[in-house]
């Protein structure tokens, strides 16, 4: 089967992979680059478990082709923690028990990071609408929203100091 050779950046590191032209970025990340923190809940763009950033835009990686990532920067949950420290969102999710089974967590973290990048001080409603593309069946979202609120506060403080 003929493949496309792609050069991209994943979580800051240069990578190269070969994939069939029809293969989704999600499958590339999971099966070729071993980044299984990217989860598949539906494969049709309806659950957000596969959320990644593509040049700082939040996308469902199941709806993007691997070939489309040529020359672009991809961010996954694996890149959230830096220098051995958890990202404030990761800490907040643990502190607030914002995960039960945890399958939706990587997607929520990537989506929430993207939200806070755009809007460091979102209201509850803004959080709820920004995360509406991510399904969670366990928590009822209550503790997720609280975790994002608290991480936003921490991040604003960090920025000031």
């Amino acid at each position, binding site marked *: *089967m003929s493949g496309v050779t792609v050069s991209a950046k994943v979580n800051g590191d240069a990578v190269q992979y070969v994939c*069939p032209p029809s293969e989704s970025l999600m499958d590339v990340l*999971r*099966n070729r680059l071993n*980044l*299984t*923190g*990217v*989860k*598949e*809940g*539906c*494969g*049709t763009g*309806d*659950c957000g*478990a596969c959320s990644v950033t593509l040049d700082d835009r939040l996308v469902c990686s199941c709806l993007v082709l691997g070939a489309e990532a040529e020359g672009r920067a991809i961010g*996954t*949950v*694996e890149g*959230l*923690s830096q220098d051995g420290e*958890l990202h404030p969102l*990761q800490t907040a*999710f*643990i*502190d*607030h*028990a914002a*995960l*039960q*089974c*945890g*399958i*939706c*967590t*990587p997607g929520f*973290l990537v989506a929430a990071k993207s939200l806070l990048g755009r809007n460091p001080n979102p209201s509850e*409603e803004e*959080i*709820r*609408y920004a*995360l*509406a*593309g*991510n*399904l*969670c*069946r*366990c*928590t*009822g*979202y*209550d*503790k*997720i*929203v*609280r975790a994002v609120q608290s991480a936003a506060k921490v991040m604003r403080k960090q920025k000031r100091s």
Partner: protein
Amino acid sequence: MPYETDYTNQKFSVIGNRVNRPDGVDKVTGRAKYGADASAAGQLVGKILRSPHAHALIKKIDTSKAEKLPGVKAIVTGDDFPDFTGGNRSLMDTLENCMARGRALYDGHAVAAVAAVDAQTANQALKLIKVTYKKLPHVTDVDEAMKPNAPIVHDWIRTAGVDPAPTTASNISQRNEFGHGDVETGFAQADIIIEKTFKTEQTHQGYIEPHACLATLGPDGVGELWVTTQGHFTFRNMCASLLGLDVAKLKVTSSEIGGGFGGKTHVWMEPVALQLARKSNRPVKLVMTREEVFKATGPTSSTSVDVKIGAKKNGRITAASAELRYQSGAFPGMWGMLGAMTSFACYDLKHVKSVGYDVLCNRPKVAAYRAPSAPMAAFGVESVIDLLAAELKMDPVEFRIKNAAKKGTQASYGPVYGPIGIGPTLEAVKNHPHMKKRLGKNQGRGVACGFWFNFGGQTCTDLNIGIDGSVNLTVGTVDVGGSRASLALIAAEELGVDYDQVRVTIGDTSSLGHNDTTEGSRGTFSSGMATIFAARNAVDVMKQRAADTWGIPVDQVVWEEGVARAKGRQNSNLPPLSLKEIAAKSPRTGGPIAGHNEVVADGAGVSFASHICDVEVDPETGSTRVIRYTVVQDAGKAIHPDYVEGQFQGGAAQGIGWALNEEYIYGDDGTLQNAGFLDYRIPVCSDLPFIDTEILEIPNPNHPYGVRGVGETSIVPPLAAIGNAVSNAVGVRMTHVPMSPPRILKAIEDAQ
């Protein structure tokens, strides 16, 4: 407190703290491995071919073309699964559900499977398999299926539980009756009687992680299965008996599980993956698509329920009866029975009768969904309770309090209750600030109660103390929602060490004795109990070691807050020995220190919840928003309050989805029309408000810490609470769930 028992005043040092879960870092960094996240060298990709028909005879399956496709390594059909069931009908049902045997029984029923070198080849191979079907008449509606001339799903079914035993086939697999007294007498005493029929549609558990496994099975009958499951021991036993394997030769490891809610208590495609692995002698990874999950796994019953309740003007219920018809999919179930058992469990009734029917349809085999069957029964009963209260001009909460079951009440399903929590949850609702909040235009408030049994079951844990005094706890119950944290708290409490000193691992099937599935809200209850006993066994060992070190009899040693102390005047010169010190010396005092426990943890204690819900209905569009929601539930002792609240909130959210949006939609051809998250819409973040919780801790006398099951009851009241709220908002009684915009508009229109 009105519900004091011996356990109320137990003092705990770490139990009840909101500690961080031990698997948190793995789960927020993407490191945690779920069902689809494991791979093996040389693995093949498995895919399943499914019936496009609701009911059809499989006349022929021609796999010859697919077999010739390069890269295809194995193909299996029903013929590749010889009957090892020894006449056990329910095992045979499980096998037939995994792979059709001569007949496709529902849209999505597996008819063949392939293993190939990659997904593309496997998909291509599926297209090359030629199945010749002969379509048969089908039935997908529960009331239709009960009619005498309905298409018959299985011609061998004779309705059980009726006298005399029928001689002809029927779609009703069993009839179960519960109750006591004489309802006719009771209704004759009533001043007001209300009778109504309710319908609820089929919903799916909707876990975000699809079913997934990685299987190997050699020609020597030795195999391994990595799988997302609520019970790897149960999966092992089922797979072994379906495939004719020795139980000990199949090692099953449970991956992290991305939600189950009852849907991952039974095998669906795991035996198929193992059989493909055996045929190809290669590891096979089989991951379902979301469409497959909807079409061929786990939904809950659709139902049709008649409820009749009578009461006196003074507000006392004189009699209650119900007939509950539950659709169980293409195989017999016990769902109507559970509906009949739970329907009136919240109330103190002199005359009560409930009859449950289990009804076959050409739909996927029904599986448990949280507290299975209870929400639909509660929808009917709690709606009629509200109607009665309104007729009697009584406050609906007062009316419920007046009739609530209490200690000594004979439950509608039979036995007499011990101390129970329905009264306290209702009192808490009555006094909750939520009840005092003013409602606006187009808004309505609803209250409803719910009941669930909870169970314990077989459990086995292993506790090993390391040389540095840190503790390894191995349990066999899958962690579906944070139970590792609770179990580490329990071990820390019992041993007197810090929470951080304990690491909890979920053992695979070769490392522990049998553990029942994590269902029936048993995880923390039963593994918690086994952990307490295992820790006490380890403490006994440590006391002995201390006694030996001191050269005194062990009965002079006590264990307090993580140290061994020598009792008595004569020993006052002996300084206490800490767990750490004893552990450090263990290589020279008799070797490793461990505690082990096997237990059948029965006595999980029934639980009750009362929910309050405010909604706002748009009269133009019929769309409903939940604007405030409060859950009050009896949890026994809450080991880790965050995760107890999480269970309450998660159950309520699932109930809200069920009440307002979610439903399986079947076409006239018997095929499922909305097998995806786009058209089967579960609540998203912007659909819901914060969900308030109030935990009542009414200790369970059968557990050393007073723990009860908490996971399931929270899904029982929402359908009814929202039904009552919507009915109050629009002024029309809603009787059909989900209360989707078109249904609400129609109800308003019909009333005008």
